[in-house]
């Protein structure tokens, strides 16, 4: 219920903001050379000549019917655009969070266990570099190194252009390729996924490593950990079974936030790697003031965040039996 109110609130705010900022979406789409009469005709056709409240009312009525409207920038239903672009983002974001969370946890744990030693210093130093490094720059450097110089990984795009897309079942290329038992397409799609996922996951990695380290340091100083060690338990058991489980709550929260953020689309990574995801679509919708596109993306992102928060909340209950939801 609260989530529904929040989502509606977000929609109202974004609708109003996107309509009150200066600029004309029709002019943005048609450009500087379109004639005045054509601009007026298009404005009428899309209902943009109507008062703001009427436009919002129409939007809500359409939304209630499950219709997100037509995109001015792509001349097709926004729902179709989201279906086309969001899976690419889900695929990239999921791969990125797997890399970021997996490596971030490992690095954070190692750093906490080796607290104050050289490994810890190196990890903290690299974390600082990782946080400061612009994604755009990192993407280009990795492309230069791993694609252009070493040839280990393919270049930009979600798939080689000569490789046919597998039939779209889920929209996730790697999954669809596996479902179609097209292993060549799977290998190709997977290899294309690695580099952008590493780049996109690098920031999550650093953030997760830092929170893991801090959380583990706090837990490792607790009495029950000392007791576990005094009992003669193996160090691995102490860290992974006793310490980590109790340190996970803030880490899970951060992972949830990162994943939600990644699912919004990453315009810079998508631009460098020519990735046909939601980030570029959202940016292009914003630049051209494509109201229907902006509202569709907003709704999707609001839903994604609500869903990510729900998963995090459920994970709390699983990790800490003291937390119960009524």
């Amino acid at each position, binding site marked *: 219920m609260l989530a529904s109110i929040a989502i509606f609130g977000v929609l109202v705010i974004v609708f109003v903001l996107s309509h009150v900022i*200066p*600029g*004309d*979406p029709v*002019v*943005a*789409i*048609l*450009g*500087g*050379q*379109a*004639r*005045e009469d*054509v601009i007026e*005709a*298009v404005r009428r056709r899309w209902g943009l000549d109507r008062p703001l409240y009427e436009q919002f009312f129409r939007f809500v009525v359409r939304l209630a019917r499950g219709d997100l409207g037509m995109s*001015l*920038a*792509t*001349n*097709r239903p926004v729902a179709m*655009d989201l279906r*086309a*672009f969001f899976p690419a983002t889900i695929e990239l974001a999921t791969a990125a969070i797997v890399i970021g969370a997996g490596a971030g946890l490992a690095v954070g744990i190692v750093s906490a266990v080796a607290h104050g030693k*050289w490994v810890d*210093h190196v990890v903290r130093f690299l974390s600082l570099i990782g946080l400061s490094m612009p994604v755009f720059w990192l993407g*280009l450097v990795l*492309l*230069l*190194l791993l*694609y*252009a*110089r*070493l*040839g280990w990984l393919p*270049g*930009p*795009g*979600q*798939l080689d*252009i*000569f490789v046919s*897309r597998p039939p779209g079942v889920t929209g996730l290329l790697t999954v669809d390729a596996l479902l179609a038992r097209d292993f060549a397409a799977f290998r190709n799609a997977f290899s294309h996924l690695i580099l952008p996922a590493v780049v996109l996951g690098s920031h999550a990695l650093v953030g997760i490593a830092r929170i893991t380290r801090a959380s583990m340091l706090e837990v490792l100083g607790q009495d029950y950990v000392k007791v576990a060690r005094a009992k003669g338990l193996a160090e691995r058991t102490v860290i992974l079974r006793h310490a980590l489980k109790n340190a996970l709550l803030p880490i899970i929260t951060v992972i949830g936030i990162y994943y939600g953020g990644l699912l919004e689309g990453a315009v810079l990574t998508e*631009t*460098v*790697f*020519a990735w*046909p995801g939601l980030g*570029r*679509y959202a940016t*292009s919708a914003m*630049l*051209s*003031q494509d109201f229907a596109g902006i509202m569709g993306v907003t709704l999707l992102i609001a839903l994604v965040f609500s869903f990510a928060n729900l998963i995090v909340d459920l994970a709390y209950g699983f990790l800490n039996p003291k937390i119960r939801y009524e």
Partner: protein
Amino acid sequence: MRALLHALAVLLLLAVAILPAAAGAAPSRVPKNVLVFGTNTADIVSLDPAQAFEFTGVWVNYHTYDTLVDYSRDFSRVVPRLASSWTASPDLRTYTFTLRPATFHSGAPVNAQAVVFSVQRVFALKMAPSFLVTDFIKAPTDVVAVSPTQLRVTFSQPMPEMLMAAVFGNPVTGVVDPALVRRNATPDDPQANKWLTANEAGSGPYILMNWTRNFKIEMRGFDNYWKGRPSMGRIFIQDMPEAATQLLALQQGDIDVAMGLLPGQFRQIAGTAGFQVKQTPTFTIRYLTMNVGFQPFSRPQVRNAVKYALDYEAYKRLYEETIDPGQTIVPAGMFAHLKDRPYTRNLDRARALMREGGYEQGFKAELMVPIDPTLPSVAAKMKEDLAQIRIDVEVKVLRNADILGVYRAQRHQMAIQRWGADYPDPANLATAFADFDSRVLAWRNQWDHAVKAKVKQAAAERDPAKRAALYAEIQKTVLDEGPYAIFAYPLRLNAMRTNVKGVDPSPLYETYDLSNATKE
């Protein structure tokens, strides 16, 4: 610890040093009968010929749809395409076209009725490029199929051949297959505009095989094209929004042609074995505009002072030599272009003109400039230049859409803008820049000058020599009195591998013809 970090740094340096250099051309991964372009395709709204008005979309349509006529590569004359011949009435208002035998990609024959149908769609849809038809043809009923192979068109004004081609050589009148369109029409969308957004129903040299937004466009040569199958079997246009990525993909042999490199990257690749950079002037103009409705610019002396204060050579350097410094409204390479370039930086003259105009003490003005890799630097230099004649410029870098809103409402003071010819005839430029009544640029800048009568006269003039003389006169007037300081004719550059032949960028983007492309 320190020793370890040092060792790590040395190892990293060594690793980078022993890697093979990336500057040379890696072997191409693209087969010989396939041509791959890398460019940003996000501009495409629709591939419906009655709607497409963006660079990439119109360029694709040029290859998937046939028009009645085309321009010769040097834009000096009109050449046949679907129409094998045509005749014009003595008053140049009525043209009769004879169609050659041709088939749509669906296998259906192309006939005069299909041409009528296609023009009627443009009227019915009234999309962005529709003015290219409706400015010259009053009603859809003025296009009549006399027989299956003959078509009569009555224009609303005398149409010299080059102007006729503005209508029937433009992809907006690309001939669509009526049966296919009707099959995909719906009660909500009787013109099948939504279907044609991502599909095609043409008869051009290439068939659109696939368009995945923000990924790729794939076209295959049409076996039954009336001119014979094009030399290149397949053409891909791969979406690559980032210039650096395009450069790497070109070097690695994943694409044959990079269309969107930055000026410095073009220079870098031009000096590398295995690559070539082809360039052409474009029918495009970059200009600084001054709103005559803003008090200081109502004085012609002040406008000319600005023109004399600008450092045109510096802008060329900022563009890294990728512009031609033309100053007249008809760009180089187009019929009737006037080569005059009277304005070079002359601060004494500029200050004297400011004095004559009554603004010796200067004034404040706002300059709007679009977000762009180079233009903000150009605007900063202009600010510096104009400060020399006491014009205190405030530069505002904005989305072009925002600038256009202000520009169209006549509320700007100064702005940097561009104009690309809609068709390669001076009538287009003269109408935009000098005809106040047409409500385009002269109107936006509130410059209502008697020269507009000459614009109308020139468009209707049948004698080429007289036409050229009239356009020369118009250009001279705009140059001397107009509210525009034209500082660039941008060049179009494409970087490609040296084995690519017959791919020559065109001054008019959409007529970038690939039908003669081959690879060695």
